[in-house]
C-alpha cells in the first residue's frame, strides 16, 4: 500500500436497474481503491456485477434502465458519478480507458484501424490529421503489429482476432491513460496470443505506470498478472486481498470453490484424474436477491449453517490487507 491517496477510489457504490416498475440493485456496498502502477483483478461468475462495475468507472452504465444509485467513484478526488457528459468525454481515454472482450464488435467495421486510432488521438490531443496518423502507426508498432504502415490501412475484418485485440489496446492506450480497464481482454484469444497481450500489458505498465483493472474468470490469469484480487458474488465484494493469499489461503467458500473447480495444468498428470470440485447451482438473479435475507452464497455453500440464511455477513477486515464477508471464515481450516 502506498501512503499517498489512491488514484481511483470507489466508495459505497450501488448500481441499480429499473425493471418491471421496480428498481433492483445489481451492485451493492462496493468500495475499493486502486493505486498507480497496480493491477487489480476482479473475479466471479457471469452475473456477479463485474462488467457493470467496470462500465460505471467510465460513466457508461446504460441509462435508462440503469444508474449509479448510491456512492462515489473518485478519480484523483473528482467524482465521476456526478461529472457531466463533457467532462466524462475528457476523462475517457485521457484518464481511464477500457478494452472490451469482443474486439470484432467493439471496432467500427467501416473505418480503417489507423483512422480509429488517429481519431482518438485527434479528439484528445487536438493533433493535426498527419500528426494523429503518425501517432496511430507508432501505437500499432508499440502493440507489436508487424508492418504497421500497411496494417493501418486495413479494416478490422482483414485482421486476425489477436491483431484486432491489439488494435483495441492501441486505441485504449493512445492517450496514455492512468487507469486501464480490461474486461476479459483475452477470453476470445488463443493462449499463445494471450501470453503476447499480457507481456504487452506488463511492458506498458512499466512505461507509463498505468493502473490496470483486469476482469477475468481465469484464475491462472489472475495469478500471473494481478497484485491484488477482489472476488465478487451476486453484486457484492465478498473477499479481497493480495494475490498470494488469494491463491494460497482463500477464506471465502466461494473463492475456494472458484479456485478448486478449475482443472489445473500439471507437469505430472495422473492417469485417472479425480473429479473436479463442483459449486452446485447457479448465481442468483438480482430479482431473487431482493427476496433473500441471508448470505447470497448460502444456497450453494457446503459450509452454510442456519445463521447464514438469516444474516448477510458484512465485509470484515482480516489482518492489514485482507477482507472477507463470511460468517464462518474463522472456522474454515486454512
Amino acid at each position, binding site marked *: 500500500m502506498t501512503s499517498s491517496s489512491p488514484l481511483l477510489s470507489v466508495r459505497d457504490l450501488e448500481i441499480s436497474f429499473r425493471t418491471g416498475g421496480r428498481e433492483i440493485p445489481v451492485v451493492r456496498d462496493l468500495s475499493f481503491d486502486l493505486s498507480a502502477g497496480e493491477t487489480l483483478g476482479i473475479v466471479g461468475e457471469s452475473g456477479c456485477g463485474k462488467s457493470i462495475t467496470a462500465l460505471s468507472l467510465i460513466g457508461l452504465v446504460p441509462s435508462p434502465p440503469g444508474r449509479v444509485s448510491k456512492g462515489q467513484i473518485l478519480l484523483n478526488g473528482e467524482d465521476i458519478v456526478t461529472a457531466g457528459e463533457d467532462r466524462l468525454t475528457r476523462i475517457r481515454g485521457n484518464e481511464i480507458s477500457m478494452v472490451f472482450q469482443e474486439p470484432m464488435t467493439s471496432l467500427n467495421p467501416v473505418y480503417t484501424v489507423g483512422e480509429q486510432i488517429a481519431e482518438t488521438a485527434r479528439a484528445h490531443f487536438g493533433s493535426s490529421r498527419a500528426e494523429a496518423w503518425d501517432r496511430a502507426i507508432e501505437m500499432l508498432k508499440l502493440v507489436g503489429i508487424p508492418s504497421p504502415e500497411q496494417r493501418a490501412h486495413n479494416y478490422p475484418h482483414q485482421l486476425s482476432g489477436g491483431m484486432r485485440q491489439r488494435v483495441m489496446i492501441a486505441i485504449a492506450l493512445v492517450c496514455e491513460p492512468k487507469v486501464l480497464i480490461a474486461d476479459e481482454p483475452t477470453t476470445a484469444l488463443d493462449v499463445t496470443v494471450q501470453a503476447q497481450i499480457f507481456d504487452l500489458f506488463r511492458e506498458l505498465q512499466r512505461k507509463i505506470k498505468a493502473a490496470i483493472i483486469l476482469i477475468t474468470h481465469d484464475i491462472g490469469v489472475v495469478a500471473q498478472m494481478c497484485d491484488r484480487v477482489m472476488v465478487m458474488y451476486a453484486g457484492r465484494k465478498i473477499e479481497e486481498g493480495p494475490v498470494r493469499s488469494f491463491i494460497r489461503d482463500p477464506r471465502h467458500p466461494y473463492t475456494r470453490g472458484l479456485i478448486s473447480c478449475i482443472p489445473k495444468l500439471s507437469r505430472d*498428470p495422473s492417469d485417472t484424474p479425480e473429479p473436479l470440485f463442483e459449486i452446485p447451482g447457479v448465481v442468483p438473479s438480482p430479482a431473487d436477491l431482493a427476496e433473500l435475507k441471508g448470505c447470497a452464497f448460502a444456497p450453494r455453500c457446503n459450509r452454510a449453517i442456519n445463521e447464514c440464511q438469516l444474516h448477510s455477513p458484512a465485509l470484515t477486515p482480516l489482518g492489514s490487507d485482507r477482507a472477507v464477508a463470511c460468517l464462518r471464515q474463522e472456522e474454515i481450516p486454512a
Partner: protein
Amino acid sequence: MSEISALSVSDLKVHFPVGGGKVVHAVDGISFDIPAGVAFGLVGESGSGKTTAAMACARLNDATDGTIRLGGDDITHLDGDQMRQARRDIQVVFQDPYASLNPRERAGAIVRRPMDLMGIGTPKEREDRVDELFATVGLRAEQKALFPHQFSGGQRQRIGIARALATRPKLIVCDEPVSALDVAIQAQILNLLGRLKAELGLSYLFISHDLGVVQHLCDKIAVMYLGQIVEIGSRSAIFRRPMHPYTMALISAVPTLEAGMDAGMRLKGDPPSPISPPEGCRFAGRCQFAQDRCRQQSPVLSGDPDGQRVACFRARDPEVAALRDKLTSTPA
C-alpha cells in the same frame, strides 16, 4: 492392433475452394485411432483445423480425401438413410448450447428427436428413454416441458449431452463443450462427461483450446498446427515430455496458479495462411529452433506407433531438450 477402434481416421483431408482457384487446406492429411472407452483430445490454436477435422469425422462436412472408419465400418462416403443409421453410433455435442438447441422445441422433444429420426423404439419406449436421459444428465423429468430459453447455460449443455446420448452412441464428438460456460458450470459439465465415459464406456473426440481441460479429461492427445498433427501421445507423455516445440510453446503459454509451466517461450505472430501453406515444416516460421532443413523438408510423425510420435527434425536435439527440461522440471 487387433481390437477395433471406435473411430479410425486415415490420411483425412478437408479442403475448401475459396474462388480464384485457391483452396483452404483446413485439414491436410491427418491419421489417428480412438480405441473404445478412450477420450481423445485434439488441441491447437484457432485455425489449426481441429474443429473441421472433428466435423468431418461426424460427417457434418465432407472429407476431400482419406478414410473415416466408425467401429470398423467405412463411413467416409455414406449418405442418406445409411448415414442417418450410422449416426446412431456417432453423435455431437456443440460448443454453443444457445445456438445448438431449437428455441421452439421443448427440451423433451429435443432429446427425443434423434430417436424419432432414426426410428428407434416405440413412442412409449422413446418417452421412457427421455426420462432416463434427463435423470442421467442431472435434469428433472418435469423440465421436459420447458423451452431452451428457460434453462441456464449449463442446463442447456446438459440437454445437448442428453440428446447426444439418446441413440446410445459409442463415440461422441465434443466441440469445445465447456468453453462457453462459466468456470463453476464448466466443472459440473466436465464431471458429467467424465462420469458418462466411465459408466457407459463412451469414447470422445474432444476439441478444446484449453489445455487444462484437455489434460483433465483426455487419455490421448493430438496437437494440430495448420491442418496437420505435429505431435500425438498419451496424456502423461504429452505433458511430462512434450517433444514438439509447438506443443512446448502451447503449454508454456498457459497461465497457471503457482510458478507455472512457463519456460518463457513466446510464439510471435500468427500461423501462416492455410491457402498456401509454406514449404517444409509449417511451424518453421514461428519456431525458435528452425534451421534450413526445416524450411525445405516436411517432417513426418515418427516414434512409437502406439505411443508418442512427433513431426519435428529437431525434437531430440540438445537445444530443444534443454528448454524442455526447463518447462517440465519443478522449480526450486
